[in-house]
């Protein structure tokens, strides 16, 4: 009469996997996105050409790859560039970016917030303020609604 209620193994089944109407994102062919070029960015930082370094590090974002290592490396590199800026130069750096660049910068900033390290949050907050002034709330909305992110 009564079913055996001892085993709770059924609770570990992920029923969503068996839903035939489950929404699956379209696979966008991962155009070999290698992430920003580490060597190029490093040399630009050493030369002190920070605006160029910013543009270089925002190239080839690893959006479509599933490779978590690549994404982490890219994020680390971006953080290095952002920290290298002087506070007074941040605004000019943001102004030199186009609309897509500002959106991408916002994505990296929020990714950086996810894993705070020594002092990273302070730098990121300064960049966030300047990027918000240029991109507006819309750029943050685009970070939240993006299906594939850095």
């Amino acid at each position: 009469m009564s079913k055996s209620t001892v085993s709770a193994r059924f609770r570990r089944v992920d029923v969503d996997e068996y839903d035939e109407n489950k929404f699956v994102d379209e696979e966008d062919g991962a155009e070999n996105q290698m992430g920003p070029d580490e060597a190029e960015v490093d040399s630009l930082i050493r030369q002190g050409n920070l605006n160029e370094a910013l543009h270089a590090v925002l190239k080839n974002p690893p959006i479509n790859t599933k490779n978590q290592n690549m994404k982490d490396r890219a994020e680390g590199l971006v953080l290095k560039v952002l920290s290298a800026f002087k506070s007074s130069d941040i605004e000019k750096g943001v102004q030199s970016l186009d609309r897509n660049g500002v959106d991408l910068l916002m994505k990296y900033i929020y990714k950086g917030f996810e894993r705070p390290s020594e002092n990273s949050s302070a730098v990121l907050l300064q960049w966030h303020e300047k990027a918000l002034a240029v991109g507006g709330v819309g750029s943050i909305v685009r970070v939240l609604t993006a299906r594939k992110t850095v």
Partner: protein
Amino acid sequence: MAYHSFLLEPISCHAWNKDRSQIALCPNNHEVHIYQKDGTKWTRIHELKEHNGQVTGIDWAPDSNRIVTCGADRNAYVWTMKDGAWKPTLVILRINRAARCVKWSPKENKFAVGSGSRLISICYFEQENDWWVCKHIKKPIRSTILSLDWHPNNVLLAAGSCDFKCRMFSAYIKEVEEKPGPTPWGSKMPFGEVLFESGTSGAADQTGGGGGWVHSVCFSQSGNRLAWTSHDSTVSLAEGGKTRTVNSLSSETLPLLCVTFITENSLVAAGHDCYPVLFVYDGAKGSLTFGGKLDVPKQASQKGISARERFQNLDRRASETQSTDKNLSTLHKNSISQISVLNGGKNNCTRFCTTGMDGGMCLWDVKTLESAMKDLKIV
């Protein structure tokens, strides 16, 4: 700009009759209320009570004077005026989730209902059985349909969906109409054919991502242009023709919930920022640009703050900085959820109306806006 507050609750949806003397709206419950314009006042003249769930869409056919409503109870009713009262006729939509939006076709011989069942029901009247029947468009829709708009040829239907895509389908019903002629969007139009889908035509965006839910779609008066707004704060416009061009503009505001054409080149959209904005499309350059905010707030009177008030402010907030205005200076005090053209049609609109979550309805006059805002050019 006339603002009238109907309720304290959100207005779920609204529709106007042909001469704009009556408005049918849903006061966030199971009913539809019809208000009649009485000089400057609005008086409620009818209450349509038939739905068992919230009424999510209302459309009023101007020529045949029929109202179609759809609700969260998975039903749609067609209301006809008989002896001074509105009589409902049930339409079985064969859906198992709530209906979300409804639109009469331009010739008013059929209507389309978008629902959470991931399909669109095209309903038409069958004379022999004296009964509304419906046909479904299912593929390739993968999520709730949020908005619909018909092309002027009575066959093409644009649908914005929660699967991040705006699509154009053919809703050709051979029982009620002739085969349609070719259009810039295509010439073969069997029922259910997809003539346009946003986001698939190449253009690998650098930022990738699929965009957001498509909240609202709108055809231009000629039907050659299709505009839609999306939850990732973008507004896009597609132009039919041999080269299908799609232009998007990422805006700096919160997402826009509704959009309409007011001329062939200008769009007005509104959303969570509580004010309508103008966008201008340049067909030759193929660019969509921001035209301006359409709500000019009354300048907060800059009267001198007395010394006592200054101390009180300091004390309250314990800071030196000027506090940001907590009150919205726009006419609508909450998100605008629907926009409709009142006079002039979609190619020469002179007045449009917005309703929102603050329970208010605002009538906007295009000529007044043009003169009030310098730099505002409606092309």
